[in-house]
């Protein structure tokens, strides 16, 4: 199967094409086809995973050269190793759940089949990104993913906020991609190849100076900053929540935002070769994680809380990977959990965060609001949603034995030897537990704060609740593949040497205490109400306002970047209107005259040639029709004529030295005679026919 792994990506592409061209009017069929495609991809991914497990994560590469430009080969190919196999599984699993969930969620949308076609296109891009075997190809799919994300965020483009959010996401990530392009060009220039293996070989053999490598790695990380919504480009992700909730679950929780983490993990060789760059990665990860978690503490929009949580968790992963690069780069024999922790958390996070988003979607579907202050007491009304949502919250908080517990512990373990990182990681873990349970208590427990909404709440249809249950199962159990001393995940996805896992009792106990403390605090404030939330907000008013306004990032950007650009634009516009226009008007007159000349030329010369060619083909066709006159006697004659021409042609070859022009002339004359005969036969036939009819 692994040889045909490219089909995993192509099947959704086919689905996109089919829906766009053939199934647009058949909504049910379009959705069914799309779901069948992603399930087929899921099945193939499973087989690939099993085969890769059988190979113990041994990389497998297939590619062919697309073209060579200035000595650099551009390849199209696939690379399958443990990381790819796991990513394929994660993407297709969450995507399958989201596809099925969307059946219910998007049921009454007028652009139902278009939504599924976009989903399919997104799956194609994301799977292509994961399968790629070189930097050039990953970049192409990277951009495709960005494009589809734009389409999906702005899916309800009638809503101005949705259209704006789509634009914001697209432009912000493009800023990161700009850095990525620079990194890409540096890769091409210094390594002479884009192939992962080729580049890493060059890095390992020290052919690229460390300074260059550091800059290169930092620029490539820019791509990850954009896509994974890291500081300072994290501002787009919360706004992207304007898109349909399934999209948020698929793109902004489990897959696309994980692409940045995947890129860092994939190019870990670069960071190991450039520890300084790795340190930048780690610091940015930590800063992002802290900022996002702190903002998440005070937000009221259920999806935005989850969005900030996602940013925070992605920062975790990035930080772990960066620390790994730094540790191993400094000391090749360092025993760092970072790579393992980052990739492992990537997997578990995809499942429980996908679940949280889908659950949030289910809640929104039921109460028609995003504001958690208007919810409450939904536990009794929506059993499956509440239970799975709380399970996922426990998982993300890191409670034993759920998935998040195992991966978060490894992240904490990865900060070993970096006290500042260690402390902040624990603080973030505390904040995570707190804001998740603030969300849970406000949404599912207590008294309903909006009686009207509460009465209309209901459990979502099965197509929505079943994916929740399935993801709930994964949110509980996905971490068990990484139970220390079992050497499951760690011996499969690794960098260099397989990481040797062991129980870190101290870490486990401390992080559990921290998580429980966060939950208890949330319980005291939002369930027991023994501490008044309003009182706290009042007491820490400046901090609360600061956090509530998201550290004023949007305002800062708009003040420092957007307003000056707009001002410049206005200035240029006035300049245009006054001076340039005068010139333009003069030029326009010339252009019109020139256009007239061109029009004349087009009409009489170019069109003449084109139409002439068409006319010749058409007339030729007509002439051929004349020969095809339907009289079988004539056919026989024609055959004999043809045979004679052939013989003449062969005979001439050796026995007579007729020149080609003569021979052609003979053939043309013969054909002309034949068509004359044909015409006569045809007219005689027609005459005879009319006679018989009489």
């Amino acid at each position: 199967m692994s040889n045909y792994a490219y089909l995993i990506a192509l099947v959704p592409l086919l689905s996109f094409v089919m829906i766009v061209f053939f199934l647009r009017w058949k909504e049910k069929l379009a959705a069914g086809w799309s779901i069948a495609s992603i399930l087929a991809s899921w099945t193939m991914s499973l087989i690939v995973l099993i085969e890769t497990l059988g190979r113990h994560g041994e990389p497998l590469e297939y590619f062919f050269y697309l073209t060579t430009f200035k000595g650099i080969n551009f390849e199209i190919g696939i690379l399958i190793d443990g990381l790819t196999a796991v990513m394929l599984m994660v993407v297709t699993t969450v995507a399958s759940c989201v596809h099925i969930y969307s059946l219910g969620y998007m049921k009454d949308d007028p652009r139902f089949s278009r939504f599924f076609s976009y989903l399919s296109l997104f799956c194609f891009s994301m799977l292509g990104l994961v399968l790629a075997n070189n930097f050039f190809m990953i970049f192409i799919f990277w951009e495709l993913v960005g494009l589809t994300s734009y389409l999906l965020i702005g899916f309800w483009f009638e809503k101005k906020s949705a259209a704006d959010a789509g634009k914001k996401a697209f432009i912000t990530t493009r800023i990161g991609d700009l850095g990525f392009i620079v990194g890409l060009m540096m890769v091409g220039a210094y390594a002479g190849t884009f192939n992962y293996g080729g580049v890493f070989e060059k890095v390992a053999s020290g052919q690229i100076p460390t300074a260059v490598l550091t800059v290169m790695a930092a620029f490539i990380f820019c791509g990850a900053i954009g896509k994974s919504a890291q500081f300072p480009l994290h501002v787009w992700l919360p706004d992207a929540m304007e898109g349909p909730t399934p999209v948020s679950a698929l793109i902004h929780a489990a897959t696309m935002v994980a692409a940045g983490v995947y890129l860092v993990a994939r190019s870990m060789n670069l960071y190991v070769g450039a520890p300084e760059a790795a340190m930048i990665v780690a610091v940015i990860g930590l800063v992002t994680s802290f900022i996002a978690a702190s903002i998440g503490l005070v937000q009221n929009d259920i999806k935005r809380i989850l969005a900030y949580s996602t940013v925070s968790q992605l920062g975790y992963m990035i930080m772990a990977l960066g620390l790994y690069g730094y540790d191993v780069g400094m000391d090749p024999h360092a025993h760092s959990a970072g790579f393992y922790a980052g990739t492992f958390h990537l997997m578990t996070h995809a499942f429980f965060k996908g679940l949280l988003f889908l659950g949030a979607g289910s809640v929104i579907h039921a109460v028609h609001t995003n504001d958690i202050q208007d919810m409450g007491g939904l536990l009794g009304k929506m059993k499956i949603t509440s239970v799975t949502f709380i399970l996922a919250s426990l998982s993300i908080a890191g409670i034993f034995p759920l998935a998040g517990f195992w991966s978060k512990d490894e992240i904490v373990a990865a900060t070993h030897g970096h006290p500042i990182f260690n402390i902040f990681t624990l603080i973030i873990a505390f904040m995570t537990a707190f804001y998740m349970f603030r969300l849970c208590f406000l949404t599912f427990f207590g008294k309903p704060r909006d009686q009207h909404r509460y009465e209309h709440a209901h459990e979502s249809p099965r197509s929505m609740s079943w994916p929740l249950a399935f993801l709930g199962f994964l949110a509980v159990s996905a971490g068990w593949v990484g139970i220390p001393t079992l050497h499951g995940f760690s011996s499969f996805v690794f960098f260099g040497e397989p990481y040797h896992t062991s129980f870190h009792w101290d870490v486990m106990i401390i992080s559990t205490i921290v998580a429980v403390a966060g939950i208890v605090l949330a319980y005291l404030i939002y369930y027991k109400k023994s501490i008044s939330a309003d009182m706290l907000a009042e007491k820490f008013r400046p901090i609360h306002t600061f956090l509530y306004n998201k550290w004023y990032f949007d305002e800062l950007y708009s003040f420092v970047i957007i307003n000056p650009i707009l001002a410049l634009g206005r200035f240029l516009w006035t300049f245009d209107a006054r001076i340039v226009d005068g010139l333009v008007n003069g030029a326009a007159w010339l252009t019109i005259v020139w256009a007239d000349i061109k029009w004349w030329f087009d009409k009489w010369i170019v069109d003449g040639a084109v139409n002439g060619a068409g006319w010749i083909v058409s007339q030729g066709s007509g002439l051929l029709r004349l020969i095809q006159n339907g009289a079988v006697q004539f056919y026989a004659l024609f055959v004999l004529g043809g045979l004679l021409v052939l013989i003449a042609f062969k005979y001439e070859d050796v026995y007579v030295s007729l020149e080609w022009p003569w021979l052609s002339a003979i053939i043309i004359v013969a054909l002309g005679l034949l068509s004359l005969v044909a015409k006569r036969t045809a007219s005689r036939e027609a005459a005879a026919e009319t006679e018989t009819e009489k």
Partner: protein
Amino acid sequence: MDFQLPHVDFRVMAPELFLFAWALVVITFDLGTKRRSGSATGYVALLGLVITGVILSITPEGAGFGAMFYNDAGSLFFKVIFLGAAFMAIGSSFGIMERKIQHHRGEFLGLILLSTVGMMFLASSNELLSLYIGLELTTIPLFVCAAFFKDNRLSVEAGIKYLIVGAMSSALLLYGISFLYGLSGTTDLLQMRVNIATTHLTFREIGLLPMLSVVLLVAGLGFKLALPPFHQWAPDVYEGAPTPVAAFLSVGSKAAGLVAFAKIMINGLQVFYEDIMAPNDWGLLVGILAGAAMVWGNVAAVRQTNIKRMLAFSSIAQAGYIMIGMLALNDIGLSSVSFYMFTYLFANMGAFAIVAIFEDKTGSTQIKSYSGLARTSPFYAASMSVFMLSLAGIPPLAGFFAKYYVFAAAIKMAGSNEIHQWLYWLVGVGLITSVFALYYYANVIKTMYFTPDESPYKLPLSLPGSAVVLIGLVGVILFGLMPGPVMDFASAIPAAFGLIAP
């Protein structure tokens, strides 16, 4: 001289013998149920083809009956194509069996099966006489099938035309064969190859005869392949004949012609390929016919208003493309031809199946009647579009890879030696004419999709017609995405024809 009985081995002939017997069973079955068997007869015939396929898969490779019957990679591959063509042709003829020929189902199906038997014999023979007999067994039942609508003038006319022109082509072919036998003293093609190789210098002094023989053979085979100027029967016969028969003609009969061509010209007369053998060479001669086929077929198809005639001219053009691969006598030429034929099977049979279903429903074969079909029958419209795109050679459908392999084989051949450079020109003609082709193929899609009004017809999904369309669709897409397995299978064929050491 001691006389020795040739080695007789019926096992290698098992699929042919079974299918022959089954054809009789089908006829008897229909008679036995007093012609009231309904569509059961059709299913019996389909079952026979499936069983034959199973038997084929377990038939050992090897020779039987002296040199008369070979079972090798090439014959096996083409037998699969023949069986597939017969299967899809019968599958799409349930409509006419229901309405038009309800009293002659047995004969109709029996004749198609017998024709398939002939093709299979042809693919296995390696000797001029058995080859000729196989060719006749292929063609004669089809004369009858073409004229099967007894009270339809067009159909009877098609049958008569096919009979007269076919008889004439057989005469030419037989004439050529007789010369060949006289010159080489054998009818065994492998022996002939040796004989000609040892005496080819003397051939030159014999004068006109070898040249005449080559031209007659090319003309005779050109008929079967519908290469200009021997193609004129094709559009008339396709138009008049029942649509499934036309489909069978365009795929099965064409594949049979290809096999016969490969057997005689490549197996027997390979040394005559080169220019230096002039005037006995056939390479350039066939090249000119192939070029003419591509130009003529594609240009004439542009103005057709009847979809069956359009497909007829398209099949003439496709024959031209196939012959490009046939002219590449290297390690990939014949395998590309086989692959082309294999993909052509799915695309063309699928397209004809839709034409048949449409004709059953509406009685029309005009292209303009298809307008707006996409709204009422999206499955058929989409399938038809896919078939058209595959025939036009648009990636990633199977037709693209077929064209690609054929061109690649020819370019490789042209690059191998100075004297084969004319193949570049042929490939050039192929590339240019495939642009014309896109025009008339896309025209069908345009008619179905981009006309504002909704079609008054709604084609029903029905077994087994829709299944045939689905088979075609799956084949066209699957072998476009994964040409590998079929190509692997086909890559053994050039070795079977002695083009490379196996």
